[in-house]
């Protein structure tokens, strides 16, 4: 490909990221366009800046970049698409949290930490491609080991697992949680009883 000036490269990268339905990686852009990674990174930084105040933003997710709508327009987007919001059940979120932070983990690990059977939730998370089977643990019984998937990063808007906030260590009870537990579970408060949900 012929040499591009920065403006041209920026426009080209913008077009490519726009047209892709999955996050596009810096390496892929660099390879495709035969341009240094550093140059790609700098036009991405510029693009990120350009879109900061707009209705869509350049998000760094799942090891790549993707244009995404601003969160404050979620309701309007949904009504345009005639889609209903999904929500994650607490069980699904707990399993995901455990798997995300502790991977690779076995079903047994998850169940010990949660104190409840989690086979069904794991199956659902596998079905939804939020977690994946990493292989089998090299111990008696060779239990399956699980980790989070690329889709997990994509959906939760994480660039990589290192992007996860540090786990809070507690030596006391979290009082914020206390309030929440006495009320009905938080995710039911949204009103729509028939919302699709991921359990």
């Amino acid at each position, binding site marked *: 490909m012929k040499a591009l000036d920065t403006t041209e490269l920026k426009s080209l990268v913008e077009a490519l990221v*726009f*047209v892709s*339905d999955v996050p596009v990686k810096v390496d892929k852009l660099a390879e495709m366009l035969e341009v240094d990674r550093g140059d790609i990174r700098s036009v991405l930084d510029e693009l990120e800046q350009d879109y900061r105040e707009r209705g869509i933003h350049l*998000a760094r*997710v799942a090891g790549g970049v*993707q*244009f*995404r*709508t*601003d*969160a404050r327009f*979620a309701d309007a*987007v949904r009504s345009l*698409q005639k889609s209903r*919001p*999904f*929500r*994650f059940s*607490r*069980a699904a*979120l*707990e399993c*995901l*949290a*455990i798997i*995300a*932070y502790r991977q690779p983990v076995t079903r047994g690990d998850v169940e010990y*930490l*949660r*104190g*409840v*059977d989690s086979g069904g939730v794991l199956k659902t998370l596998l079905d939804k491609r939020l977690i994946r089977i990493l292989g089998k643990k090299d111990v008696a019984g060779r239990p399956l080991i699980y980790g989070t998937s690329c889709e997990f990063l*994509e*959906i*939760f*808007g*994480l660039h990589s697992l290192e992007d996860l*906030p540090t*786990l*809070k*260590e*507690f*030596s*006391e*009870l*979290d*009082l914020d*949680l*206390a309030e*929440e*537990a*006495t009320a*009905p*579970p*938080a*995710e039911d408060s949204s009103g729509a009883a028939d919302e699709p949900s991921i359990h």
Partner: protein
Amino acid sequence: MKLDIKLENFEGPLDLLLHLIRSNEMDIWDIQINRICEQYLAILDAMQSLNLDVAGEFLVMASTLLHIKSKLLLPQSEFEEGEEEEEDPRAELVRRLLEYQKYRVAALELDDRDLLGRDVYARKFTSPELADVEGEEYFEVSLFDLVEALQDVLARAPKEAVHEIGFESVSIAERINHILDRLCGHESLSFKELFADRPARIDVVATFLAMLELVRLRTIRLMQTDRCGEIWIFPTADGEEPVVGGLEDESLGYN
């Protein structure tokens, strides 16, 4: 203690215990097992008296609590001196509760993020720009494309013909010559054009093998308009006259 607690509001016994300890405003490091145990069992009883199923995990925890309670009743003096000091019977439960709480908080944090498909949206569809990407371009045909085309034709061939294979003598060379004859004076020829409306299966096979042979001899090239589209036969563009005639079955290894 109110008993209007719904078990299904809790993710499990650990969650319920955290709730009880919090609502009793107890110090997690000094859980009053008697009180907690009593309340916990009362909730389970209430559930059972309503004929609601109580999951096994809740019952297991009940027995754990009772076990801890009984251990606490044993006077410390029963342990011989010099023996390593026994760990507080509540210690493991406390560790598990704090560990569980850690992931419980992490789960809520995950839920607080801007989730794709819930809070933010991306273009999760094929752009119109890409819809006609494969357009008029030609791709080199792979063997699999060929086999697929063959299968198409075979599917249309009369089934009875299948049984005739092996009895009819088919000349690959004759088919090669047929292809080259048809190709003569044309820029290209489609695979389908090589056949009559309802070709015998044996003819299709022979023609197919002939075509492969011609590809091997670099006399023709096969191209396809798209992955599943029509296969086109082109004479090779090296200017040489295609070898016509003089091909014997034996020279090709077919008999």
